[in-house]
């Protein structure tokens, strides 16, 4: 792998950037691998990278139906944070956040991870009580969290509506200063390049159409590019987990819903943190290109269409404008949607399936991007050794039957809307 560096960039600039080598190969699939990972999104590519890097397993293929990073990895609002409430999720996402902090150096690829802070706004006494309680829980587990007064929030985000008749009056907030954003495409490309350099075959335009299963044990996968044998197979296709697991005869506690996001035309810097709210569902941040990035609730009904309903955009825009009135002057540039695995307790599913040698990493609802490195590394641990890592163990598929759900919102057995 040709290492990227400032000097290399300068040298390549002198020759008009014409001689860059390709970042990863485009190999033909071999007839068998030790481990096959289905899904070339961030989670699948990270899994393959850590299999090679941490566990020394070079015979690994990543099979991607379309192009890598073309699903939810490239469709999220790029927010990274670990300030969840349930201790199992805190451990998982803090493990992940620590990997984010070293990712650019480790992969020799600039993922533009920007720890600009992630703020939950509180709009009422009860919001502030909930935020204080969450902050205490986070600090008790060694995760940074600071409760902010109204004046501190006003100083940090001067564009917020702090007038007496604000639609959503701001009483204060809770900030995780280590939270922030990253460039989502670069995460897929960085892991792909680093995994490829360690011998992983990344095979695009290769859709899995079935599994070879004998005596309750997986022996490989059928694909649009032929049969590929494998000792172990990992499913990393969040959005389509039910579809792919269905090819092996499994039914999962997952519904596929849709989450939209949209961006404005690019403007000068006006928001240098990530704005969220304890009461309303609207995220606001500004990309490095200058676009205001907005997201909110999922569409709340099953669909694989990757086309959202306009009423959700209207709702998110109205909330964003109420919080930051200056946004009303902006024109929206584009909107898009991703198909998300909505699990029935709002938490991911990582680990064994009833079929030996077949493992699942899905159910990420609309919060998978922030978990990309941790998810990949913990899933690689499971695929390599056949045993769950202790951080991933609570997220086993059988937790629903055991009554051990990890329910961040307390909504019960249905697709979570928040």
């Amino acid at each position, binding site marked *: 792998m040709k290492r990227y560096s400032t000097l290399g960039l300068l040298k390549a600039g002198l020759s008009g950037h014409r001689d860059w080598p390709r970042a990863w190969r485009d190999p033909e699939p071999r007839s068998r691998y030790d481990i096959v990972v289905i899904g070339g999104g961030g989670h699948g590519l990270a899994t393959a990278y850590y299999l090679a890097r941490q566990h020394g397993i070079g015979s690994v293929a990543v099979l991607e139906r379309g192009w890598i990073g073309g699903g939810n990895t490239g469709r999220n609002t790029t927010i990274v944070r670990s300030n969840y409430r349930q201790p199992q999720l805190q451990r998982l996402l803090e493990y992940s956040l620590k990997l984010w902090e070293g990712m650019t150096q480790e992969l020799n690829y600039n993922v533009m991870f920007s720890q600009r802070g992630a703020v939950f706004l509180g709009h009422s006494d009860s919001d502030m009580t909930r935020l204080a309680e969450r902050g205490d829980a986070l600090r008790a587990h060694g995760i940074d969290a600071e409760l902010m007064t109204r004046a501190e929030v006003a100083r940090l985000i001067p564009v917020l509506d702090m007038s007496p008749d604000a639609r959503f009056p701001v009483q204060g907030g809770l900030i995780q200063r280590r939270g922030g954003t990253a460039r989502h495409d670069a995460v897929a490309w960085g892991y792909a390049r680093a995994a490829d350099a360690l011998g992983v075959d990344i095979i695009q335009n290769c859709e899995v159409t079935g599994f070879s299963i004998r005596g309750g044990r997986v022996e490989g996968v059928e694909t649009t590019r032929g049969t590929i044998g494998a000792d172990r197979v990992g499913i990393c296709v969040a959005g389509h987990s*039910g579809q792919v697991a269905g090819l092996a005869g499994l*039914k999962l506690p997952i519904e596929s819903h849709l989450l939209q996001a949209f961006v404005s035309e690019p403007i000068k810097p006006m928001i240098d943190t990530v704005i969220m709210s304890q009461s309303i569902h609207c995220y606001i941040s500004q990309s490095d290109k200058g676009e205001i990035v907005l997201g909110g609730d999922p569409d709340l009904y*099953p*669909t694989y269409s990757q086309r959202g309903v306009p009423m959700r955009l209207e709702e998110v825009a109205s909330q964003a404008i109420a919080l930051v009135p200056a946004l009303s002057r902006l024109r929206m540039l584009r909107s898009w949607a991703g198909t998300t695995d909505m699990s029935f307790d709002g938490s991911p599913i990582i680990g064994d399936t009833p079929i030996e040698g077949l493992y699942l990493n899905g159910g990420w609802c609309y919060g998978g991007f922030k978990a990309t490195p941790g998810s990949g590394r913990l899933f690689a641990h499971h695929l390599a050794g056949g045993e769950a890592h202790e951080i991933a163990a609570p997220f086993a598929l059988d937790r629903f039957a055991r009554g051990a759900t990890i329910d961040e919102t307390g909504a019960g057995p249905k697709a979570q809307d928040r």
Partner: protein
Amino acid sequence: MLRIACPYCGRRAQAEFVFERALDAILPLDETPVAAVEHLFARDNPKGWSWELWRHTAGCGAWLKLHRHTVTHQIAAVETLGASAQDAGE
């Protein structure tokens, strides 16, 4: 946005309706524990035609059965439930 033909109210915008659950997630009250867990949590989650339970929450309040395609969003049938099905026929 979907336009859903409520048997009572006519064609209305999706904003008036709420998706409740897929019909394979209806839990009969006399299930054994194992079957109950299956019904509560496991889903076909079809990529294609699906039977679903919706409610016309911001309209007449009726519970409705929809036969809907989860990729094209085409709606092939909207049916009323139980006793209210007779009212719809009147």
